[in-house]
């Protein structure tokens, strides 16, 4: 068997080895330092600038999908949301009343990301900041650190894993200037297909007759819709075509310069990004009402060697970002777009005014083009100073480092929303046309809100010691740091860490590492603020062993490693001083209602007990075990990295099981939950060349499984209702066994309370046999299989031409069709809202055999209860990213006095194949659609 395998591998690489590897990593960027790759014991994956810049996007998150094992992303909308809500309420007595404990609105509104199922901490150049809004061109590398030992220095934030971003560092050498300009087109994907108006009318009648009501439309009206002879009374408008453009541009420009001599080196980068949205604009409106994003980044990095022992590094990064949205807000607009039927009203009435009805009072197109705009502006400045002093003269191997960082961020919103009046046109039987106003005009407002203000400060001092005694190598360090954040009106949050690390290796073969950390946070109750966390790791590099050296020519590296540690997750979930029983004065907007006195109704003030019982909460913790193998074969052409892990989380914050309402107040979060996460990650890469033709393939695969081991679940009446022991976040509901087909089946079947099932309704399984479908028939309905996601990058380069492609996919995933506007249709209150193509497959006596949806009704709590009927497979794979680039040869570029010229074209979300075809597998209908981006650019180096 072994020989067969070897032969197979040799067949793949039977040619001479003049190879140029993608990137050889001798040292790795890890938290707060750079370590040699040979002695690193943790679980990490690194992406370089070259791999990141093939993705045309405004931030770096889309570039990470499918490239990092253990890192799962799911996109939930295609464009960022603006944040314009004020962070205070207005009290008629006092003025602005701050909202405490609000936290920072996230820069990432498009993706749900998880690193081994935890939300990772983003560390950018050694500073913990959740910055997602950076162009990939400005990033040197991104590393994910997944295990306990590599994250332990974060103390109370170490459970979450780290997404480490390193921007371009100054490099000594000749001055080098690089300019990249790229422009792309974004196209929406997977837009839903609304029903044409005549079909809608017919199906609405069917739904109404099914519930025993009079039909809403007559036969003649179907023909009027179909023929379009009366465009004002019987319109048929596909609002998606009217409101959304087919393409929108995305432009990015980058200018960077670096260089320097022995004493000082610098790296400067400037970036401008301009992304437009898909909403149509009106030529009559001379300001921007489309969604858009404009961002300017300046990053200056200077490194000065003051003496040969003393180094000073300074970095300043500034970001200005302006986001724009139509005045009503993207969410409201997309909701209205989703819900308005084709036949509701024409775009404009006969007299040119905006059309509407008494139920649909706002005109969708008016909301898009004529509702003003809202903007959010973010300004962010970050300054770093690093000092390093080598005390080698004094004690050999000793050095001291100090870092301090100050950042100021401010987010403000401007709301300039307006509304134009809309009218309902009615033609009386005698031919008189009348116009009734439905939505009255609202003048353009001019509101300025401070959404968010923050000051960050971070200071760290570390003492490092490196030494070797023969074959014994030591490295020790002590780090102390403190991080202070000041958000809005809150009191400062101060996190203090003190870490001691020791690394030992014998001859590079046997590796032992250990770290102990004590970490405290000032918002916990005094006396409960500090905790101790620790981690240690063992490694064995087999190929360094004497008995292995040179023995197997095909095995270049085989390193076994394992780490174990206790990490913590606090700080961000600490609540805002809720360990005391407190009362707040209330003005009616916060807390309880305002009351008035006497017949004059003068306003009275109030006092109310705060919403939760007081409780001393502390951080959550985890025991993390990670075992891995790093191996390379055939002269480092084939590389394998495997990690298997088990993380046991405990002290998780949740409400206790016996949270009885009779106590008259809400129960607080207490540290009682326990869950376990297990998984395996594989990365396999192969690089080879045939003469000048180099090709590579790199694949990664991740399996994840979770289990809730304890959550203080009350004893349920039936065993199928118990959820302890099931994966995290499972769905519960009724089990569905298809649809009732005949009257006898319906008469004998069980139904939900107060409802009589008819043929065409969903048949639920009555688990306890009492003839009624109620909470005792609810059980697990989603899959418990481990989540599997993978990515495969293929590429080649020859003679200046470079090509690469990324395929990524997810298996064992499910989608729940919970949006009744799409899958149920006709909802509304006094008017009937839009219906989409899926409901064409509804049950009727004729189509009973092939029906996939229940019979049509107007709102039906039986059919739309949470059940397995609405679960579909969410498996998909995408040709996610493709790039073709050409580097002009030296002879040509020298003639133009350039040191390099490169043209490239790339694309994102090129093709998708999904098990369920009704919607994009990631972005649901009703959210800003997923976009395919096709991008071309040129890069000039001087």
């Amino acid at each position: 068997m072994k020989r067969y395998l070897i032969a197979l591998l040799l067949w793949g690489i039977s040619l001479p080895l003049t190879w140029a590897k993608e990137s050889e990593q001798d040292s790795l960027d890890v938290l707060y330092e750079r370590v040699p790759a040979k002695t690193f014991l943790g679980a990490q994956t690194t992406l370089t600038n070259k791999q990141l810049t093939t993705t045309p996007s405004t931030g770096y998150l889309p570039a990470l999908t499918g490239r990092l094992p253990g890192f799962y992303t799911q996109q939930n909308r295609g464009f960022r949301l603006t944040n314009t809500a004020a962070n205070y309420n207005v009290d008629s007595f006092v003025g602005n009343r701050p909202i405490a404990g609000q936290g920072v609105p996230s820069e990432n509104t498009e993706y749900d990301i998880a690193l081994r199922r935890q939300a990772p901490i983003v560390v950018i150049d050694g500073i913990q900041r959740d910055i997602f809004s950076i162009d990939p061109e400005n990033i040197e590398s991104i590393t994910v650190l997944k295990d306990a030992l590599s994250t332990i220095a974060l103390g109370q934030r170490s459970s979450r894993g780290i997404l480490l971003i390193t921007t371009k560092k100054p490099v000594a050498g000749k001055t080098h200037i690089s300019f990249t300009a790229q422009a792309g087109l974004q196209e929406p994907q997977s837009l839903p297909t609304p029903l044409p108006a005549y079909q809608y009318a017919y199906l609405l009648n069917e739904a109404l007759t099914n519930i025993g009501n009079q039909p809403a439309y007559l036969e003649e009206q179907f023909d009027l819709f179909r023929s379009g002879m009366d465009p004002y009374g019987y319109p048929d408008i596909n609002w998606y075509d009217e409101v959304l453009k087919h393409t929108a541009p995305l432009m990015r420009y980058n200018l960077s310069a670096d260089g320097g001599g022995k004493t000082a080196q610098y790296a400067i980068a400037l970036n401008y990004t301009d992304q437009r949205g898909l909403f149509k604009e009106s030529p009559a409106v001379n300001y921007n009402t489309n969604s858009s994003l404009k961002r300017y980044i300046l990053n200056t990095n200077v490194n000065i060697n003051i003496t040969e022992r003393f180094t000073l590094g300074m970095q300043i990064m500034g970001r200005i970002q302006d986001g724009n949205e139509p005045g009503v807000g993207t969410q409201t607009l997309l909701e209205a777009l989703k819900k308005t039927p084709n036949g509701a009203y024409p775009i404009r009435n006969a007299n040119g005014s905006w059309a509407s009805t008494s139920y649909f009072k706002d005109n969708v197109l008016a909301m898009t083009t004529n509702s003003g705009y809202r903007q959010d502006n973010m300004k962010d400045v970050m300054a770093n100073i690093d000092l390093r002093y080598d005390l080698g003269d004094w004690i050999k191997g000793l050095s001291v480092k100090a870092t301090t960082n100050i950042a100021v961020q401010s987010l403000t919103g401007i709301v300039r929303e307006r509304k134009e009046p809309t009218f309902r046109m009615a033609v009386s039987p005698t031919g008189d046309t009348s116009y009734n106003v439905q939505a009255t005009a609202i003048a353009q407002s001019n509101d300025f809100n401070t959404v968010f203000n923050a000051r960050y400060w971070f200071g760290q001092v570390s003492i490092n010691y490196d030494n070797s005694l023969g074959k014994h190598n030591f490295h020790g360090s002590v780090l102390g740091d403190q991080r202070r954040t000041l958000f809005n009106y809150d009191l400062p949050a101060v996190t203090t860490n003190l870490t001691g690390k020791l690394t030992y290796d014998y001859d590079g073969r046997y590796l032992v590492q250990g770290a102990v950390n004590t970490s405290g946070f000032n918002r916990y109750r005094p006396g409960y603020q500090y905790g101790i966390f620790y981690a240690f790791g063992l490694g064995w590099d087999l190929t360094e062993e004497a008995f292995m050296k040179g023995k197997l020519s095909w095995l270049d590296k085989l390193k076994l490693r394992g780490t174990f540690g206790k990490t913590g997750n606090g700080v961000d979930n600490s609540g805002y001083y809720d360990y005391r029983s407190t009362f707040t004065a209330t003005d009616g907007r916060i807390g309880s209602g305002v009351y008035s006195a006497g017949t004059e109704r003068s306003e009275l003030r109030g006092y109310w007990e705060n919403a939760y019982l007081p409780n001393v909460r502390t951080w959550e913790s985890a025991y993390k075990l990670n075992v891995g193998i790093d191996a390379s074969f055939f002269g480092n052409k084939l590389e394998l990295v495997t990690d298997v892990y088990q993380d046991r989380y405990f002290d998780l914050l949740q409400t206790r099981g016996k949270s009885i309402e009779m106590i008259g107040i809400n129960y607080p979060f207490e540290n009682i939950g326990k869950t376990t996460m297990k998984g395996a990650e594989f990365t396999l890469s192969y690089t080879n060349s045939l003469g000048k033709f180099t090709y590579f393939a790199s694949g990664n695969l991740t399996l994840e499984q979770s289990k809730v081991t304890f959550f203080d679940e009350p004893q349920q009446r039936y065993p199928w209702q118990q959820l302890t022991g099931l994966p995290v976040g499972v769905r519960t509901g009724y089990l569905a066994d298809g649809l009732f087909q005949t009257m006898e089946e319906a008469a004998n079947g069980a139904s939900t309370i107060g409802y009589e099932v008819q043929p065409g309704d969903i048949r639920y399984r009555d688990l306890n046999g009492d003839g009624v479908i109620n909470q005792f028939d609810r059980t697990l309905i989603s899959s418990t299989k481990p989540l599997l996601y993978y990515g495969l990058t293929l590429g080649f380069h020859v003679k200046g031409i470079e090509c690469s492609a990324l395929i990524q996919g997810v298996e064992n995933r499910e989608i729940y069709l919970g949006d009744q506007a799409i899958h149920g249709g006709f909802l509304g209150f006094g008017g009937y809202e839009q219906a989409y193509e899926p409901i064409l497959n509804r049950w009727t006596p004729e189509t009973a055999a092939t029906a996939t949806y229940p019979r049509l009704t107007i709102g039906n709590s039986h059919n739309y209860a949470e059940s397995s009927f609405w679960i579909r497979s969410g498996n998909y794979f995408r040709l996610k990213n493709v790039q073709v680039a050409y580097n002009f040869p030296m002879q040509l570029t020298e003639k133009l006095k350039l040191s390099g010229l490169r043209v490239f074209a790339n694309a994102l979300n090129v093709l998708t194949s999904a098990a369920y075809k009704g919607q994009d597998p990631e972005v649901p209908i009703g959210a800003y659609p997923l976009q395919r981006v096709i991008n071309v650019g040129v890069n000039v180096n001087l």
Partner: protein
Amino acid sequence: MRTKENIKRYTVFPVIAIGLITAMLSCKKDYEAEPLENVTIEYVFDPNDSLGTNAGNFLNSMYADMFPKSVSRNRIGGNLLDAASDDAIPSNIEENDISKLSKGQYSAYERIESEMIWGDCYKNIRAATIFINNIDVVPVNDSKFDPLPAGLTVKRAWKAEARFLRALAYFELLKRYGGVTLMGERVLQLGEEVELPRNTYEACVDYIVGEMDAIQDSLLAYPVPSPSRNSHRVTKGAAMALKARVLLYAASPLFNGENIDGANPLTGYTSFNAERWARAAEAAKDIIDLQTYSLVNNVKEIFTRQYNEEIIFFKQWGNNKDIENANGPFGFGTQIGGEGRISPTQEFVDAFPMNTGEPIDLSGDYDPNNPYTDRDPRLAINVLYNGAKWLSESLQTFEGGRNKPGGTEMQTVTSYYMRKFMGDFEEATQYSEVQRDYVMFRYTEVVLNYIEALNEYSGPSQPIYDQLKALRMRAGILPGDDGNYGIPTTLSKEQMRALIRNERRLELAFEEHRYWDIRRWKIAEELMNVPLHGMQIIQSAGVLTYNPTEVFEPRFVLGMYFYPIPDSEVLKNTAMKQNPGWD
């Protein structure tokens, strides 16, 4: 090699480093350790505060959260509670909270949050108990407030008001769920035993009545000093009115003698006792004997004139058009408004007698083809029917008329709209704001409570006839030749009962009484298991034809006399017993 220069160099950085370290790690106190805007209980109930400002504000918050939490008549799914009784149905044909109530499409797990207010009531109880336990330390100085009659102090009045609000919360729980857990004077904290059993129905009634007896003399009496500032406060009359209503409910068949679950002490008394009716009658008579309240002559004014002589207790609302906008007839255009959410039924309209006081099925004057002429004047005040004057137009609720055009927009299903609670807009051309309050207890109800209890206890008697005549005279019924306002003089107890129940239906329509009355009289099973009717009016060539049609099919099963205790409460509390029919 250590030279002077090297020493300097060696010392430079450590000095800088130590300086930086001390600068960075020295925790200078720039800010306070804990947020000061969140205060502890000593600040709210301050032993040095002779005005009792914060404590008084705490009491204000209790008023604000009193039932109904969000003050509106359309508080369930946008509709009135009585749209789930046989008086009216929702105009919205889609499934919604109110239709789920009338069809019983709810369970212990799927609650109708706006009406099944278990958690909210207990929150109010907790707040009240905190106030009662802590107010004693506050040295409230009476001279700083409006002068009170002798024997009352501000602090005692406040404490009594808090006890009333707590008892009111218990009563809201009692009528919905039967016997509930009485929390007593304890405010529980994390870790204390909360798995408490339910108290019996009897214990709850005794508790509420005991509280009302204890606080009566500490409360302000009607009329309060400076009504412009104090009209909203709990008064002695309010405490007596709550006591009268509790005793009336406790004496009713559902709880007294016809327990739906045999001798289950949680769903009522375990046996019948006629004296309960006597106690109820006496409690109501006490209020009548105060002679401080009286019937308002113009019925329309009861809900639109602030602090009139009929209102005993109310929750502040405001100067608005809320009732008109939600329930006004559809079809007047969106500038004027009116969504017509509630459709009164034909059964309700038929309950109104002729203006002589005779029921329509016994009167020779009733014309089915002209059903609204010469009817009880209260019909026009409660309901808008086809041809009624409204907003200077004649209401058109025939099929295809202006106010019932058909199509998909929400409009009346029965050709009737509700008129009660609205301002005088018959002659106006649009709605304007009306000063309105949510009236919870009023004198008419006290009178009706009295005569119902007295009849049940001792049969028809002169006081009952006198009160009925007073009500009918106020209503505008013609006195008739014998001055009896159409009330027959020789009635049996059963006939008088039917007359009183009908009179109650007409007087207290849409005030959240009918819904509870059909339950406590145990007639919901008959009335809510048959289809309800509306009127289909067809106009052709100027002639109107009236066809009563079935418009709604409610459903009522035995368990629905009580709401289910929330499933989560039963699961988490091993001592909690679920109501019969819901487990």
